[in-house]
């Protein structure tokens, strides 16, 4: 085995297929998207080279910045909700009754497709017959808002659905990480008289810090390029109140037939994600891994 792995030719042979696929399906399109952004192109006819016009125009495009702000809000919200997921996992990882059952409940949303989740929440938020408003009506709250039609509420209504959608995923990650902590450390802490909160805060959390950092990156980058629920539930409406970068890009490219402009939006999105990843890495690097 060692002999095979030291043969350069063999290594190339094994790596090449995946590398080629990644190049063709990911890196080439990224370069192409940047290139299309330099064009005026309706997606059908001839392309006209217009230099950096699209990119410059985007800088003063209010709707684009508004969408970016919404994406940023989503990123902040999902990062904050990570703390909630963590707390739930901490509780589930202690041997409380029914932890197994509860864990499965939290996991179910992960098994549903985005479209199904969107349909489900559309039903919950329905202004007259929806689950939420029916409940509010029965307890005598007659002025219940139309959650998805009110432009000051719509974004947060969808955020809640998104946070629900991803709960299972993050809880699963944290749960697995917490289960990896050696039992002996916890035992020792207990003997020394540590309270459960102290154990969670001073021992468990530091030990899964590495995992936590990774989930921050996942949550922020995932939020910046988020598309599905928003597209299905509101299409970015009413009047752009729930527009995010990805839905704006889609609208420009496929509804308004500004492929060039849409590509430019896509390229900025890539840039934002790269910057965000770099920033988080920079801010969260600590000197060394904590070990006990």
């Amino acid at each position, binding site marked *: 085995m060692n002999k095979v792995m030291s043969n350069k030719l063999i290594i190339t042979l094994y790596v090449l297929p995946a590398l080629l696929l990644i190049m063709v399906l990911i890196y080439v399109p990224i370069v192409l998207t940047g290139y299309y952004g330099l064009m005026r192109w309706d*997606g*059908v006819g001839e392309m006209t080279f217009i230099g950096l016009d699209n990119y410059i125009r985007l800088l003063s495009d209010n709707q684009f910045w508004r969408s970016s702000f919404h994406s940023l809000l989503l990123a902040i919200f999902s990062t904050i909700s990570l703390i909630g997921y963590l707390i739930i996992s901490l509780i589930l990882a202690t041997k409380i009754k029914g932890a197994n059952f509860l864990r499965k409940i939290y996991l179910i949303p992960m098994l549903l497709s985005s479209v199904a989740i969107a349909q489900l929440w*559309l039903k919950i938020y329905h*202004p007259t017959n929806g689950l939420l408003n029916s409940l509010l009506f029965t307890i005598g709250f007659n002025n219940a808002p139309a959650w*998805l039609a009110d*432009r000051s509420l719509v974004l947060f209504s969808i955020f809640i659905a998104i946070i629900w959608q991803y709960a299972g995923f993050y809880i699963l990650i944290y749960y697995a990480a917490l289960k990896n902590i050696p039992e002996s450390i916890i035992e020792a802490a207990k003997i020394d008289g540590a309270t459960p909160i102290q154990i969670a805060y001073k021992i468990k959390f530091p030990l899964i810090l590495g995992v936590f950092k990774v989930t921050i990156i996942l949550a922020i980058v995932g939020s910046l390029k988020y598309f599905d629920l928003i597209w299905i539930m509101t299409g970015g409406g009413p009047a752009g109140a729930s527009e995010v970068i*990805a839905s704006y890009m889609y609208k420009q490219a496929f509804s308004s037939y500004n492929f060039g402009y*849409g590509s430019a939006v896509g390229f900025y999105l890539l840039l934002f994600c790269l910057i965000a990843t770099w920033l988080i890495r920079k801010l969260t690097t600590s000197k060394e891994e904590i070990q006990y």
Partner: protein
Amino acid sequence: MIKKLFSLILVLTLVGLGGCGPADDPDATDPTPGTDGEVVDESTISFTHLWPAGSSAQHNRIVESIISEYEEANPGVTIDVDVLSNDQYKETMTILASSRQLPDVGLTWAAGYMTPFVNGNMFASLDDVIEDGLGEEFIPGTVEAFSVNETAYGLPLELNIAPIYYNKNIFAEYDLEVPETYDEFLNVVQTLEENGVTPITVGNREPWTGSMWYMYLADRIGGPELLTNAIERTDTFEDEALVQAAEEIQNLVDMNAFVRGFNGLGNEEAKGPFMNEQAAMYMMGTWELPNYTTNEDVPQEFRDSIGFFKFPMVEGGAGDIDSFVGGPGVGLFVSEDSPVQEQAKDFVQFFVERWGETSVTDAGVIPATVVNTDEVDLPDMYIDILDELAGASNITLYADVQMTASVAQTHLDLIQSLFGKHITPEEFAKRHEEALAAEE
């Protein structure tokens, strides 16, 4: 091929999802690429349409039967059919067009949608087919919607107008008459509202539905030409009548005329309260007619209780009650690059003729060709609508279809803002004017 692959990849990156599978078949079946225009006995016409057997069973059956008839009448000609769902269709066409791989015959929407294809020289002129006797069969105005610079590039298949459907039982319960003037209409709205019945349901999350309400008010107040002229820039969108129409929309919103949370409801969701007899009125294209006539899935009592009326007159307005908002749905195009163009043109001509004869009786589709109401056996509501069509003084094409794609997007966003009262009527008009001016 490389270019096509790139376009595909572009879509994959932009959307981040797959789902573009069916894009790669036409060149596999073209039998005679590169031969000169001569029509050979053995020819294959590729034809892509958007009526899958599952979701549009009746349409699909008609298409199948027309094709088999044609193949029988023309031995040696094979029609190679590809079916896409409605949602996939537009995107796939865009991708195929960017690599000049359009099918020989396919479907297109009118005006704004087809303009880039025509400008890109991808559709063949169909003037010869129309001059070949087919012309007189079309209802006036329908071919024009598929024409660019007086040349026809598409043959319309459907024609729809948008009346207001109403629930006769609800109207009877509150002693309401079908309104003929706008004041009577407001009175109906108010009575219903006071009695806790939703007067009108509209799914403005898809703002083309709200746009029709605005278009009718613009038509009744400013006359049939005004909106079209404003879009074509021979008149201004800041015309007093167009601003007043916007004011009337907000006035209706203030009266609680529209269903709760209309800006968050899709058209299908908005249809619910009307079908459940919770809302009294619903404006929609005549493609809804089967739900009120022949569709067995809808209870008979409900179907019997639905009628329609024309959008009422506004006192002192320049409009006319026989003017409608509507337009042709899809039409057939023939690809300019098709190696079997002559045969394809022959096929579309045959298709349109047969479609006109069978579509209304078999699928409830109102064709863009004249239907002889004496000869066909149809539910009363169809006969009434067809008569209204025959007597129509004007049909204004849906605003978002008239406009180019990016102005249409602005228009739809503004409609949502107008209904949601996020902007004033003056701003609404001004921002339309700006968007239209920017296109010039």
